[in-house]
Protein backbone atom coordinates (compact mmCIF):
# COMPACT_ATOMS: atom_id res chain seq x y z
CA UNK A 1 0.00 0.00 0.00
CA UNK A 2 2.73 2.36 0.97
CA UNK A 3 4.24 2.19 -2.51
CA UNK A 4 1.11 3.63 -4.05
CA UNK A 5 1.17 6.83 -2.10
CA UNK A 6 1.86 10.23 -3.56
CA UNK A 7 1.77 13.74 -2.18
CA UNK A 8 -1.37 15.78 -2.51
CA UNK A 9 -1.55 19.46 -1.67
CA UNK A 10 -4.75 21.42 -1.94
CA UNK A 11 -4.22 25.13 -1.47
CA UNK A 12 -6.81 27.91 -1.41
CA UNK A 13 -6.27 31.65 -1.03
CA UNK A 14 -7.42 31.41 2.59
CA UNK A 15 -5.72 28.27 3.83
CA UNK A 16 -3.92 25.04 3.05
CA UNK A 17 -6.94 22.82 2.76
CA UNK A 18 -5.23 19.44 2.63
CA UNK A 19 -1.68 18.22 2.65
CA UNK A 20 -0.60 14.61 2.92
CA UNK A 21 0.13 11.28 1.29
CA UNK A 22 -2.77 9.73 -0.54
CA UNK A 23 -3.28 6.70 -2.74
CA UNK A 24 -5.87 8.15 -5.08
CA UNK A 25 -7.62 11.40 -5.82
CA UNK A 26 -10.64 11.86 -8.08
CA UNK A 27 -12.19 15.12 -9.21
CA UNK A 28 -14.15 16.75 -11.98
CA UNK A 29 -12.43 18.70 -14.75
CA UNK A 30 -13.74 20.65 -17.71
CA UNK A 31 -13.13 17.52 -19.81
CA UNK A 32 -14.87 15.12 -17.43
CA UNK A 33 -14.02 13.25 -14.28
CA UNK A 34 -10.50 12.06 -13.66
CA UNK A 35 -8.97 9.70 -11.13
CA UNK A 36 -5.28 10.02 -10.42
CA UNK A 37 -2.96 7.34 -9.08
CA UNK A 38 0.77 7.46 -8.51
CA UNK A 39 2.94 7.77 -11.61
CA UNK A 40 0.46 9.70 -13.74
CA UNK A 41 1.93 11.53 -16.71
CA UNK A 42 2.43 15.26 -16.13
CA UNK A 43 -0.86 16.94 -16.74
CA UNK A 44 -2.44 20.32 -16.22
CA UNK A 45 -6.20 20.36 -15.91
CA UNK A 46 -8.80 23.02 -15.30
CA UNK A 47 -11.26 22.14 -12.60
CA UNK A 48 -15.03 22.09 -13.04
CA UNK A 49 -17.41 22.17 -10.07
CA UNK A 50 -17.84 18.71 -8.57
CA UNK A 51 -16.92 16.33 -5.82
CA UNK A 52 -13.32 15.61 -4.97
CA UNK A 53 -12.66 12.20 -3.45
CA UNK A 54 -9.45 11.71 -1.54
CA UNK A 55 -8.44 8.15 -0.68
CA UNK A 56 -5.66 7.67 1.83
CA UNK A 57 -4.68 5.08 4.42
CA UNK A 58 -7.29 6.19 6.88
CA UNK A 59 -10.15 5.92 4.41
CA UNK A 60 -12.07 7.97 1.89
CA UNK A 61 -12.93 11.64 2.27
CA UNK A 62 -15.02 13.88 0.12
CA UNK A 63 -15.30 17.60 -0.38
CA UNK A 64 -16.95 20.03 -2.79
CA UNK A 65 -14.39 21.54 -5.16
CA UNK A 66 -15.61 24.44 -7.29
CA UNK A 67 -12.90 26.15 -9.26
CA UNK A 68 -9.20 26.29 -9.88
CA UNK A 69 -6.65 24.17 -11.64
CA UNK A 70 -4.44 21.22 -10.86
CA UNK A 71 -0.90 20.32 -11.74
CA UNK A 72 -0.33 16.58 -11.83
CA UNK A 73 3.26 15.35 -11.69
CA UNK A 74 4.57 11.83 -11.43
CA UNK A 75 5.09 11.95 -7.70
CA UNK A 76 2.63 14.56 -6.56
CA UNK A 77 -0.45 16.61 -7.26
CA UNK A 78 -0.97 20.28 -6.48
CA UNK A 79 -4.51 21.60 -6.63
CA UNK A 80 -4.81 25.36 -6.66
CA UNK A 81 -8.43 25.61 -5.60
CA UNK A 82 -10.41 28.81 -5.47
CA UNK A 83 -13.26 27.38 -3.44
CA UNK A 84 -13.33 24.05 -1.67
CA UNK A 85 -15.41 22.91 1.29
CA UNK A 86 -15.68 19.88 3.55
CA UNK A 87 -19.26 18.58 3.88
CA UNK A 88 -19.58 19.96 7.42
CA UNK A 89 -18.86 23.46 6.14
CA UNK A 90 -21.69 23.48 3.65
CA UNK A 91 -24.90 25.35 4.28
CA UNK A 92 -27.46 23.03 2.73
CA UNK A 93 -30.33 25.51 2.69
CA UNK A 94 -28.24 28.11 0.96
CA UNK A 95 -27.07 25.59 -1.62
CA UNK A 96 -30.67 24.54 -2.30
CA UNK A 97 -31.75 28.13 -2.71
CA UNK A 98 -28.87 28.74 -5.07
CA UNK A 99 -29.84 25.69 -7.10
CA UNK A 100 -33.44 26.84 -7.40
CA UNK A 101 -32.36 30.34 -8.38
CA UNK A 102 -30.01 29.05 -11.05
CA UNK A 103 -32.63 26.67 -12.45
CA UNK A 104 -35.16 29.45 -12.53
CA UNK A 105 -32.76 31.68 -14.40
CA UNK A 106 -32.04 28.99 -16.98
CA UNK A 107 -35.73 28.26 -17.46
CA UNK A 108 -36.83 31.82 -17.98
CA UNK A 109 -33.84 32.82 -19.99
CA UNK A 110 -33.78 36.05 -21.89
CA UNK A 111 -31.09 37.26 -24.28
CA UNK A 112 -29.45 39.10 -21.41
CA UNK A 113 -29.11 36.01 -19.24
CA UNK A 114 -25.54 35.04 -18.62
CA UNK A 115 -26.05 31.36 -19.32
CA UNK A 116 -22.50 30.28 -18.58
CA UNK A 117 -22.68 31.93 -15.19
CA UNK A 118 -26.02 30.42 -14.33
CA UNK A 119 -24.78 26.99 -15.38
CA UNK A 120 -21.68 27.16 -13.20
CA UNK A 121 -23.82 28.38 -10.32
CA UNK A 122 -26.09 25.39 -10.83
CA UNK A 123 -23.15 22.98 -11.02
CA UNK A 124 -21.74 24.42 -7.81
CA UNK A 125 -24.99 24.14 -5.93
CA UNK A 126 -25.51 20.56 -7.11
CA UNK A 127 -21.97 19.61 -6.09
CA UNK A 128 -22.55 21.06 -2.63
CA UNK A 129 -25.82 19.22 -2.20
CA UNK A 130 -24.34 15.93 -3.40
CA UNK A 131 -21.40 16.11 -1.05
CA UNK A 132 -23.65 16.99 1.85
CA UNK A 133 -26.03 14.12 1.26
CA UNK A 134 -23.35 11.45 1.05
Amino acid at each position, binding site marked *: MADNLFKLRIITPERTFFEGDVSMVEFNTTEGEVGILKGHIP*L*TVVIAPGIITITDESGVREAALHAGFAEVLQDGVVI*MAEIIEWPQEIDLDRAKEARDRAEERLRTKTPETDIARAETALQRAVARINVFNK
Partner: protein
Amino acid sequence: MASMRDIKRRKGSIQSTQQITKAMKLVSTVKLQRAKSNAEKSKTYFHAMYETVHSILKKTKNLDHKYLKSGETGKKAVIVITSNRGLAGGYNSNVVKLITQGSLKNEDLAIYAIGKKGKEALSKKYEIAEDYSDCIEEPVYAEAMRISARLLKDFEEGKINEIYLAYTGFKNTVSHIPTLLKLLPIDSGDEIMADAGTEFSEEDDKVLMNFEPEEEEALDLLIPKYITSLIYGSMIEAVAAENGARMQAMDSATSNAEEMIDKLTLMYNRARQSSITQELTEIIAGANAIS
Protein backbone atom coordinates in the same frame (compact mmCIF):
# COMPACT_ATOMS: atom_id res chain seq x y z
CA MET B 1 18.93 80.14 28.26
CA ALA B 2 15.35 79.99 27.10
CA SER B 3 12.80 81.25 29.55
CA MET B 4 10.77 78.85 31.67
CA ARG B 5 7.62 79.66 29.83
CA ASP B 6 9.15 78.89 26.42
CA ILE B 7 10.48 75.56 27.60
CA LYS B 8 7.15 74.65 29.12
CA ARG B 9 5.31 75.49 25.92
CA ARG B 10 7.77 73.48 23.83
CA LYS B 11 7.44 70.50 26.15
CA GLY B 12 3.66 70.68 25.97
CA SER B 13 3.66 70.58 22.20
CA ILE B 14 6.04 67.63 22.08
CA GLN B 15 3.90 65.83 24.60
CA SER B 16 0.82 66.18 22.46
CA THR B 17 2.74 64.99 19.40
CA GLN B 18 3.86 62.01 21.40
CA GLN B 19 0.30 61.23 22.33
CA ILE B 20 -0.61 61.17 18.66
CA THR B 21 2.29 58.96 17.65
CA LYS B 22 1.59 56.64 20.54
CA ALA B 23 -2.05 56.30 19.52
CA MET B 24 -1.08 55.72 15.91
CA LYS B 25 1.34 53.06 16.98
CA LEU B 26 -1.36 51.26 18.92
CA VAL B 27 -3.77 51.46 16.00
CA SER B 28 -1.24 50.11 13.54
CA THR B 29 -0.27 47.34 15.95
CA VAL B 30 -3.85 46.15 16.01
CA LYS B 31 -4.14 46.47 12.24
CA LEU B 32 -0.86 44.67 11.82
CA GLN B 33 -2.08 41.68 13.81
CA ARG B 34 -5.01 41.28 11.48
CA ALA B 35 -3.08 41.94 8.29
CA LYS B 36 -0.30 39.63 9.40
CA SER B 37 -2.58 36.67 9.94
CA ASN B 38 -4.19 37.34 6.56
CA ALA B 39 -0.81 37.55 4.90
CA GLU B 40 0.39 34.34 6.48
CA LYS B 41 -2.73 32.48 5.44
CA SER B 42 -2.60 33.59 1.82
CA LYS B 43 1.16 33.37 1.46
CA THR B 44 1.15 29.64 0.77
CA TYR B 45 -1.30 30.05 -2.09
CA PHE B 46 0.51 33.04 -3.48
CA HIS B 47 3.89 31.31 -3.54
CA ALA B 48 2.50 27.97 -4.66
CA MET B 49 0.74 29.73 -7.53
CA TYR B 50 3.98 31.32 -8.69
CA GLU B 51 5.87 28.07 -8.43
CA THR B 52 3.19 25.93 -10.00
CA VAL B 53 2.70 28.15 -13.03
CA HIS B 54 6.44 28.39 -13.58
CA SER B 55 6.84 24.66 -13.21
CA ILE B 56 4.02 24.03 -15.69
CA LEU B 57 5.53 26.38 -18.23
CA LYS B 58 8.99 24.96 -17.78
CA LYS B 59 7.71 21.60 -18.86
CA THR B 60 6.12 23.02 -21.96
CA LYS B 61 8.10 23.63 -25.07
CA ASN B 62 7.48 25.80 -28.10
CA LEU B 63 4.66 27.72 -26.59
CA ASP B 64 2.90 30.11 -28.85
CA HIS B 65 0.37 31.85 -26.71
CA LYS B 66 -0.81 35.43 -26.74
CA TYR B 67 0.10 36.00 -23.08
CA LEU B 68 3.53 34.47 -23.33
CA LYS B 69 5.28 36.57 -25.91
CA SER B 70 6.09 40.18 -25.58
CA GLY B 71 4.43 42.45 -28.08
CA GLU B 72 6.35 44.67 -30.45
CA THR B 73 4.63 47.84 -29.44
CA GLY B 74 3.55 49.45 -26.26
CA LYS B 75 4.92 50.45 -22.93
CA LYS B 76 5.99 48.49 -19.96
CA ALA B 77 3.28 48.40 -17.33
CA VAL B 78 4.07 48.49 -13.64
CA ILE B 79 1.52 47.83 -10.95
CA VAL B 80 2.71 49.90 -8.01
CA ILE B 81 1.35 48.94 -4.62
CA THR B 82 1.85 51.60 -1.94
CA SER B 83 -0.31 53.02 0.82
CA ASN B 84 -2.89 55.78 0.80
CA ARG B 85 -1.50 57.36 3.93
CA GLY B 86 1.92 58.56 4.90
CA LEU B 87 3.78 58.43 8.20
CA ALA B 88 5.08 54.97 7.52
CA GLY B 89 8.79 55.62 7.42
CA GLY B 90 10.46 54.59 4.20
CA TYR B 91 7.66 52.27 3.16
CA ASN B 92 6.34 54.25 0.19
CA SER B 93 9.58 55.80 -0.95
CA ASN B 94 11.31 52.42 -1.07
CA VAL B 95 8.77 51.13 -3.56
CA VAL B 96 9.03 54.32 -5.61
CA LYS B 97 12.82 54.07 -5.58
CA LEU B 98 12.57 50.57 -6.94
CA ILE B 99 11.10 52.07 -10.09
CA THR B 100 12.91 55.38 -10.39
CA GLN B 101 16.34 53.95 -9.62
CA GLY B 102 16.02 50.29 -10.57
CA SER B 103 16.44 48.50 -13.86
CA LEU B 104 13.37 50.18 -15.33
CA LYS B 105 14.51 53.72 -14.75
CA ASN B 106 14.93 54.81 -18.35
CA GLU B 107 11.97 52.99 -19.81
CA ASP B 108 8.69 54.42 -20.93
CA LEU B 109 6.34 53.20 -18.25
CA ALA B 110 2.61 53.09 -17.74
CA ILE B 111 1.80 53.05 -14.04
CA TYR B 112 -1.20 51.20 -12.68
CA ALA B 113 -1.29 52.67 -9.21
CA ILE B 114 -2.72 50.96 -6.15
CA GLY B 115 -2.14 53.48 -3.37
CA LYS B 116 -2.15 57.28 -3.51
CA LYS B 117 1.38 57.87 -2.28
CA GLY B 118 3.01 55.92 -5.07
CA LYS B 119 0.75 57.56 -7.61
CA GLU B 120 1.63 61.07 -6.43
CA ALA B 121 5.35 60.35 -6.44
CA LEU B 122 5.38 58.77 -9.89
CA SER B 123 2.92 61.03 -11.66
CA LYS B 124 5.60 63.66 -12.30
CA LYS B 125 7.72 61.39 -14.41
CA TYR B 126 5.44 58.70 -15.80
CA GLU B 127 1.99 58.30 -17.20
CA ILE B 128 -0.59 57.03 -14.74
CA ALA B 129 -2.72 54.63 -16.74
CA GLU B 130 -5.15 53.83 -13.98
CA ASP B 131 -5.66 54.53 -10.31
CA TYR B 132 -7.00 51.78 -8.08
CA SER B 133 -6.11 53.43 -4.79
CA ASP B 134 -9.35 52.52 -3.07
CA CYS B 135 -8.71 48.80 -3.10
CA ILE B 136 -5.69 48.92 -0.85
CA GLU B 137 -7.86 49.88 2.12
CA GLU B 138 -9.28 46.40 2.21
CA PRO B 139 -7.98 44.05 -0.47
CA VAL B 140 -10.62 41.73 -1.88
CA TYR B 141 -10.20 39.09 -4.55
CA ALA B 142 -12.85 40.63 -6.79
CA GLU B 143 -10.85 43.85 -7.06
CA ALA B 144 -7.73 41.95 -8.01
CA MET B 145 -9.78 40.22 -10.70
CA ARG B 146 -10.92 43.57 -12.07
CA ILE B 147 -7.37 44.88 -12.19
CA SER B 148 -5.97 41.80 -13.87
CA ALA B 149 -8.80 41.80 -16.43
CA ARG B 150 -7.94 45.39 -17.34
CA LEU B 151 -4.22 44.62 -17.60
CA LEU B 152 -4.73 41.57 -19.76
CA LYS B 153 -7.03 43.52 -22.03
CA ASP B 154 -4.42 46.25 -22.47
CA PHE B 155 -1.83 43.55 -23.03
CA GLU B 156 -3.87 41.89 -25.75
CA GLU B 157 -4.57 45.21 -27.44
CA GLY B 158 -0.85 45.92 -27.55
CA LYS B 159 -0.99 49.01 -25.33
CA ILE B 160 1.49 47.40 -23.01
CA ASN B 161 3.99 44.68 -23.72
CA GLU B 162 5.34 43.71 -20.35
CA ILE B 163 3.78 43.67 -16.90
CA TYR B 164 5.71 44.18 -13.69
CA LEU B 165 4.53 44.24 -10.12
CA ALA B 166 6.21 46.49 -7.54
CA TYR B 167 5.19 45.86 -3.95
CA THR B 168 6.59 45.40 -0.47
CA GLY B 169 6.98 41.81 0.59
CA PHE B 170 6.19 40.99 4.19
CA LYS B 171 8.80 38.68 5.65
CA ASN B 172 8.10 39.32 9.30
CA THR B 173 7.08 42.23 11.51
CA VAL B 174 10.40 44.04 11.24
CA SER B 175 11.63 42.95 7.84
CA HIS B 176 9.90 44.15 4.68
CA ILE B 177 11.39 43.73 1.26
CA PRO B 178 10.51 46.01 -1.67
CA THR B 179 10.12 43.62 -4.58
CA LEU B 180 9.86 44.01 -8.34
CA LEU B 181 8.34 40.98 -10.00
CA LYS B 182 7.87 40.36 -13.69
CA LEU B 183 4.43 38.94 -14.35
CA LEU B 184 4.16 38.76 -18.10
CA PRO B 185 5.45 37.49 -20.41
CA ILE B 186 6.85 34.54 -18.56
CA ASP B 187 9.87 33.45 -20.54
CA SER B 188 12.36 30.73 -19.91
CA GLY B 189 15.24 33.12 -19.34
CA ASP B 190 13.56 34.55 -16.27
CA GLU B 191 12.75 31.19 -14.85
CA ILE B 192 16.41 30.23 -14.78
CA MET B 193 17.12 33.46 -12.94
CA ALA B 194 14.39 32.77 -10.44
CA ASP B 195 15.62 29.25 -9.85
CA ALA B 196 19.30 30.05 -9.64
CA GLY B 197 19.40 29.43 -5.92
CA THR B 198 17.29 26.31 -5.77
CA GLU B 199 17.99 22.81 -6.86
CA PHE B 200 15.57 21.27 -9.25
CA SER B 201 15.88 18.00 -11.05
CA GLU B 202 16.76 18.31 -14.71
CA GLU B 203 15.05 15.01 -15.32
CA ASP B 204 11.71 16.33 -14.21
CA ASP B 205 11.82 19.24 -16.58
CA LYS B 206 12.40 17.09 -19.62
CA VAL B 207 9.08 15.36 -19.23
CA LEU B 208 6.59 17.23 -21.32
CA MET B 209 3.47 18.63 -19.75
CA ASN B 210 0.12 17.57 -21.12
CA PHE B 211 -2.88 19.81 -21.07
CA GLU B 212 -6.52 19.09 -20.75
CA PRO B 213 -8.34 20.92 -22.32
CA GLU B 214 -6.01 22.01 -25.11
CA GLU B 215 -2.90 23.96 -24.19
CA GLU B 216 -4.26 27.21 -25.57
CA GLU B 217 -7.56 26.94 -23.76
CA ALA B 218 -6.00 25.83 -20.49
CA LEU B 219 -3.55 28.73 -20.52
CA ASP B 220 -6.36 31.15 -21.33
CA LEU B 221 -7.93 30.16 -18.04
CA LEU B 222 -4.78 29.68 -16.07
CA ILE B 223 -2.90 32.89 -16.77
CA PRO B 224 -5.63 35.30 -15.65
CA LYS B 225 -5.92 33.27 -12.44
CA TYR B 226 -2.17 33.48 -12.03
CA ILE B 227 -2.09 37.26 -12.49
CA THR B 228 -5.11 37.79 -10.26
CA SER B 229 -3.78 35.77 -7.39
CA LEU B 230 -0.37 37.39 -7.60
CA ILE B 231 -1.96 40.84 -7.48
CA TYR B 232 -4.18 39.78 -4.60
CA GLY B 233 -1.36 38.13 -2.69
CA SER B 234 0.92 41.11 -3.08
CA MET B 235 -1.84 43.49 -2.00
CA ILE B 236 -2.33 41.52 1.20
CA GLU B 237 1.39 41.37 1.89
CA ALA B 238 1.73 45.07 1.17
CA VAL B 239 -0.98 45.94 3.70
CA ALA B 240 0.79 43.91 6.35
CA ALA B 241 4.11 45.53 5.47
CA GLU B 242 2.54 49.00 5.53
CA ASN B 243 1.23 48.54 9.04
CA GLY B 244 4.49 47.00 10.14
CA ALA B 245 6.43 49.94 8.73
CA ARG B 246 4.07 52.44 10.32
CA MET B 247 4.28 50.71 13.65
CA GLN B 248 8.07 50.92 13.55
CA ALA B 249 8.07 54.53 12.43
CA MET B 250 5.63 55.52 15.16
CA ASP B 251 7.53 53.55 17.75
CA SER B 252 10.74 55.41 17.03
CA ALA B 253 8.86 58.73 16.86
CA THR B 254 7.40 58.03 20.30
CA SER B 255 10.76 57.20 21.81
CA ASN B 256 12.36 60.24 20.17
CA ALA B 257 9.65 62.40 21.72
CA GLU B 258 10.33 60.74 25.04
CA GLU B 259 13.99 61.64 24.76
CA MET B 260 13.23 65.25 23.88
CA ILE B 261 10.80 65.57 26.76
CA ASP B 262 13.45 64.25 29.16
CA LYS B 263 15.93 66.82 27.89
CA LEU B 264 13.43 69.65 28.12
CA THR B 265 12.40 68.61 31.63
CA LEU B 266 16.02 68.85 32.70
CA MET B 267 16.35 72.26 31.05
CA TYR B 268 13.12 73.42 32.67
CA ASN B 269 14.24 72.35 36.13
CA ARG B 270 17.58 74.09 35.69
CA ALA B 271 15.85 77.27 34.55
CA ARG B 272 13.48 77.08 37.51
CA GLN B 273 16.30 76.56 39.95
CA SER B 274 18.32 79.44 38.57
CA SER B 275 15.32 81.74 38.66
CA ILE B 276 14.66 80.84 42.31
CA THR B 277 18.32 81.43 43.15
CA GLN B 278 18.22 84.73 41.40
CA GLU B 279 15.05 85.77 43.20
CA LEU B 280 16.56 84.84 46.56
CA THR B 281 19.73 86.77 45.82
CA GLU B 282 17.63 89.79 44.92
CA ILE B 283 15.52 89.59 48.10
CA ILE B 284 18.57 89.15 50.30
CA ALA B 285 20.34 92.02 48.57
CA GLY B 286 17.22 94.16 49.03
CA ALA B 287 16.94 93.24 52.74
CA ASN B 288 20.60 93.99 53.29
CA ALA B 289 20.22 97.39 51.67
CA ILE B 290 17.36 98.33 54.03
CA SER B 291 19.00 97.29 57.29
